[in-house]
């Protein structure tokens, strides 16, 4: 079990934190535009 935990830690350590922060920022921006915008689809009406 400890071996797997260590492997997971090593795998995570390989990921550049700047890369992770960029992904988080992009996902957050996508969430922002979805929440700030109000484009109206049919919402199930007429589909």
């Amino acid at each position, binding site marked *: 079990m400890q071996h797997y935990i260590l492997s997971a830690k090593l795998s995570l350590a390989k990921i550049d934190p700047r890369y992770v922060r960029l992904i988080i920022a992009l996902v957050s921006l996508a969430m922002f535009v979805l929440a700030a915008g109000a484009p109206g689809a049919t919402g199930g009406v*007429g589909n």
Partner: protein
Amino acid sequence: MILLYAVLAGLLAGLVRAGLTRRSLRFPGLRLLWLAPAAYLPQHLAFQFSPARRLLPDDLAAFILVGTQLLLLAFVWANRQQPGFWLLGLGLVLNLLVIALNGGFMPISPETVARLAPDAPPGTWQVGERLGSTKDIVLPAADIRFEWLSDRFLMTAGTSANRVAFSIGDVIIALGAFRLLWMLGSPGPGRTSESFQSPESRFSLGSLHSNREREYGD
């Protein structure tokens, strides 16, 4: 969905710009980033997640929409120095204004709904009621306050499921997102920016990752 296209287009444009000018990727360090998911998740529950949206009364859904947009306004204010945020803020304020003045939902006229869903059976939408599970409420054009800010533009390309009505605020938000992501390929790291500066890591996010792997000896 059309707003996500703007994010994707801006991301692609920023990557291409960085590649063409042989510059490193950079993204402005944003403050209070947690406000974006904090605003999105309640809206997702209220308008997208079927079990929750059926349980929520319209009054509460309207409260959630206005309240979460106020959270986003705080996020915009905290990052107002960043490129594109004045456009994001302007679009947000325009949407929030017309929503707040029309009962907490984005107004849409019956004429626009008829063009948006021409095949809708009679009775599936009514004036004065919300349009399905969307953020929109159907109101006569004459009764809409600031009608020019409402969902009055149509994108009808593709299938009927892809049709969408949008507001001038949505357009400005899309432009702001594009402008912000265009900065990915901008020259030189600023004081608040996070640069992906490294000889091998220009342009490609994949190369950034593989570069890191080499560093760790894989």
